[in-house]
């Protein structure tokens, strides 16, 4: 389980970790033994804690086996019990991964997926991870490093090809809007007009969420992993020369692992309350 792997990083940050669900102690016990989970899984079978946090999923039919389930959520709580960050997804099957959460908190590193040395800039693709599951929301990274003396333009810079990242959509992916750093004002020798862009390294991030295992069935059965494609468009200039706009293909390659479908022992399972 991904949370278990991230525990050491959280400990290094001084953060504890627990998960809470409407499962019983016995269901959590069977799961923890099977998967080697050592962090606390708290049993809330009457959903009292889930309700107190305002996270009861009320879209589930009352009386059904799923009644009492929590809306998935990740909360960062400080040592005084005050919520500092919250990650609650729109779709019940989407989960932000812990590496993506750590990255948002400024703590997690990213893993390089590709490097492309162009004439005037270096382009690096990276992501918060290399292994993903159906439903995971994670972060793609594009680093653009202009040569010394070279600048590129902000996405909305008129008259030039602004730096833009486009990720290719797929039916089983939800794409979130790219996040660009705040551009700086470029004082250019050949114009008095203010132009906005970047002189140093530029990092663009794009969040992506995988669909359900049903939506990703063909990829899971093919065993080929998940490849995400995109393009980076930009125009590089120095103080004397503007080179033609460029479009660079981007590629991220992930291992796509199937979800854990092993059930709790029959006698421990949730029953319909109807």
């Amino acid at each position, binding site marked *: 389980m991904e949370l278990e792997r991230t525990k050491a990083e959280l400990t290094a940050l001084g953060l504890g970790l627990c998960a809470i669900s409407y*499962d019983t*102690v016995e269901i959590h016990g069977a799961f923890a033994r099977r998967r080697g989970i050592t962090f606390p899984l708290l049993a809330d079978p009457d959903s009292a804690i889930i309700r107190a946090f305002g996270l009861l999923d009320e879209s589930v039919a009352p009386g059904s086996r799923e009644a009492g389930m929590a809306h998935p959520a990740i909360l*960062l709580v400080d040592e005084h019990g005050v919520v500092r960050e919250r990650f609650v997804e729109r779709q019940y099957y989407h989960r932000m991964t812990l590496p993506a*959460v750590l990255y948002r908190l400024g703590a997690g590193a990213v893993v390089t997926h590709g490097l492309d040395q162009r004439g005037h800039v270096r382009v690096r693709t990276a992501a918060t991870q290399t292994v993903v599951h159906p439903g995971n929301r994670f972060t793609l990274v594009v680093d653009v490093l202009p040569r010394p003396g070279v600048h590129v333009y902000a996405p909305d810079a008129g008259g030039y090809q602004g730096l833009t990242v486009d990720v290719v959509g797929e039916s089983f992916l939800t794409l979130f809007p790219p996040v660009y750093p705040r551009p700086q004002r470029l004082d250019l020798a050949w114009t008095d007009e203010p132009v906005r862009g970047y002189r140093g390294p530029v990092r663009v991030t794009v969040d992506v969420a995988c669909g359900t295992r049903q939506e990703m069935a063909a990829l899971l059965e093919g065993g080929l992993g998940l490849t995400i494609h995109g393009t980076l468009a930009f125009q590089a200039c120095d103080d004397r020369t503007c080179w033609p706009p460029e479009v660079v293909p981007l590629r991220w390659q992930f291992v796509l692992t199937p979800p854990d*479908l092993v059930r709790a022992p029959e006698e421990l399972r949730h029953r319909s309350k109807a």
Partner: protein
Amino acid sequence: MNGDPPVATVGPAIGTRIPPFGAPDQDGRQQTFESIRGPRGAIIVFIRSSDW
């Protein structure tokens, strides 16, 4: 199940204090926020079920 819940209003808001809680873990040990937190706090993950 596929509806869009009003995500911004689900769960505690940033800057608010979480309610006190206590529950048994997978080994039956009683846990609270004080017992699970580190020196700088904790990540609390609400999951739907470990029995998918």
